[in-house]
């Protein structure tokens, strides 16, 4: 029972160490890195990532993968933008519900294909990655939704927070709620523990009477749900919803955050705190590279290297400690 309350596990310590190292090195080279502005910049960068990574994490805990998250985010975000532009009466919270519901529906399609259609996760979500992105262009007729088409209140979510205009705007609060909800769900519900069990040993989970298909279906729905919420947050933060730009390539960042956050690529182990740490690490790297004037091309390279280091470390940890 004590384990349930432990936030950070051994496997997350290197992520934490790496984060401290990156902050220290950046601050040494560029002392201006340690300012409230940078902190705010990082804090605003990660909410989108956190809500997508929470869903992606649950999928990966079951040994699956969801590469369609960026396209689901794009389709939900575009639908929200069009709805607010053409029917402003639905209001920002109505639009938020719409985005989340649509994301969950798109995720359910993935879930049906994978859990009941027996299509491998990578193939199913690769298919919907293309299909959903195509739909973004179709429903938008290729035209972007501009900030002036959207209510002011939506944009204010990225500036104002529950305590006025502080370091913690509403988008950050939403991300914290999503992470807290995921944490409680995974630790204190039967289904949450089933998710770990399926990833740990699918055959044993089935023999123990865990409804494997139903739980597998559910994690893809949750992944879609998070992506849908991210689409709404994207609209709030950036204003412009461009069919080609929104969520494009986001699957790489989300999967990176999950893997770097210590979730085993073989499923079954990993924590919410670790993934949040992974998101923080990627957000910090992105800001650090910019502040250090390092060319853009290095950003992709750095993400790739960080994933590789994390996976190699994961394997090393596995062979060393899991036997014990």
């Amino acid at each position, binding site marked *: 029972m004590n384990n349930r309350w432990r936030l950070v596990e051994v496997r997350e310590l290197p992520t934490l160490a790496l984060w401290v190292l990156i902050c220290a090195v950046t601050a040494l080279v560029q002392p*201006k890195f340690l300012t409230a502005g940078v902190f705010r910049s990082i804090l605003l960068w990660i909410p989108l990532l956190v809500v997508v990574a929470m869903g992606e994490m649950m999928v990966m805990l079951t040994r699956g993968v969801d590469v369609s998250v960026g396209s689901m985010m794009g389709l939900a975000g575009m639908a929200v933008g069009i709805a607010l532009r053409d029917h402003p009466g639905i209001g920002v919270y109505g639009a938020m519900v719409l985005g989340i519901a649509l994301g969950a529906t798109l995720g359910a399609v993935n879930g049906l294909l994978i859990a009941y259609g027996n299509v491998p996760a990578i193939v199913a979500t690769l298919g919907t990655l293309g299909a959903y992105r195509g739909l973004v262009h179709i429903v938008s007729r290729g035209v972007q939704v501009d900030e*002036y088409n959207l209510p002011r209140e939506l944009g204010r979510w990225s500036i104002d927070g529950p305590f006025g*205009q502080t370091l913690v705007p509403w988008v950050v609060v939403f991300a914290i709620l999503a992470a807290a909800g995921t944490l409680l769900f995974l630790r204190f519900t039967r289904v949450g523990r089933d998710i770990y069990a399926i990833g740990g040993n699918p055959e044993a989970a089935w023999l123990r009477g865990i409804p494997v298909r139903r739980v597998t279906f559910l994690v893809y729905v949750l992944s879609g749900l998070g992506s849908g919420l991210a689409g709404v947050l994207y609209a709030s933060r950036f*204003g412009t919803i461009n*069919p080609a730009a929104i969520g494009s390539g986001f699957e790489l960042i989300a999967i990176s955050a999950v893997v770097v956050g210590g979730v085993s690529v073989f499923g079954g182990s990993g924590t919410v705190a670790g993934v949040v740490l992974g998101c923080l690490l990627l957000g910090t790297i992105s800001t650090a590279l*910019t502040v250090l004037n390092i060319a853009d091309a290095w950003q992709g390279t750095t993400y790739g290297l960080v994933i590789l280091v994390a996976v190699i470390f994961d394997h090393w940890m596995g062979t060393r400690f899991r036997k014990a």
Partner: protein
Amino acid sequence: MFRKLTLLLFLVTGTTSCQKREAASNPGTTSVAAAASGPVRVVYIPKNTGNPYFNGVVAGLEKGCKELGAEFFTTGPANPDATSQIPFIKDQVQRGVNVICISPNSSDALNQVFDDARTRGIKVVTVNTDLVGNESHRDAAVYPCDFDTLGASQIELLGSLIHYEGRFAILSSTTDAPDQNYWIQGMKEALKNSKYTRMELVDIVYGDDKPQKSRTEAEGLLTKYPDLRAILAPTSVGIEQAAKAVEAAGVYPGGANARGRGVVVTGLGTPNQLRRYIKDNIITAVALWSPPDEGYVSAYVAVGLATDKITAQTGNSFDVPGFGRRGFGKNNLVIAGPPLIFTKDNIDQYNF
């Protein structure tokens, strides 16, 4: 300021008109339309679909083609990659259009497909962006305003906003964007003028015309240069994210966290996109030309070339209703009009 620019541009366009040499036939409006046997088919391929800038160009082309009795349609790729337009060009050649108007994504990757189209008698008109160094692969080019002086006019606009004093940075699109790089070169040239000696360009960063990247770069500038006086963003994605960055950080002139006189954001952007920032005093003034006017002039060039009523040759000129005479300059380049400057006082007159 605006008047000065207008005057300057009238002088420039006026000079070209004076050098006019009549084309073989009189390229009047009515004769262009009347000479067309069967409707002329014009297609426009923007850099990418969904970009509001090109929607304005499309509106102008549509209007002009309608007036001239030409058929008009538009199609294009989702992403502005160097080669993404090639299949669209090939499709249109197959369909048998008479004119391909295009805002090319590359100044050299399209040479071959353009040559193929032109051997079949199709006219190729580049709109908004030219094939710099490869002008022989198209028939004519239409620029919305004089790009040779745009960099200098941006520096003058910025100077007037910061009282010709302070450190500033440029937030551009991609590192190899031909237009932005050309304007930046013009900006650097202009800065050598003694009028601007107290203005210092401290950094050039690239947001790749992607919202997230542009935002990260804009915030990075505010971190790296705490005494920054201005961000000059000659791209519509960049200027919007720069505006959002100074708004969120509260460092715009008069903002809660502004140091000294605050960080001024200016550059190029559409009035619809920046209206709220201008009304909220986050941005004071921003420049752009009129995309619908650019499209309208392009329509007259396109249909005129297809019906042989206009010959693309340096020195030739032709009439565009409401615009007066427009001429072909060096490399058969046509300039649609002067840049516009949007401020609180005039922004409500524009809707694009």
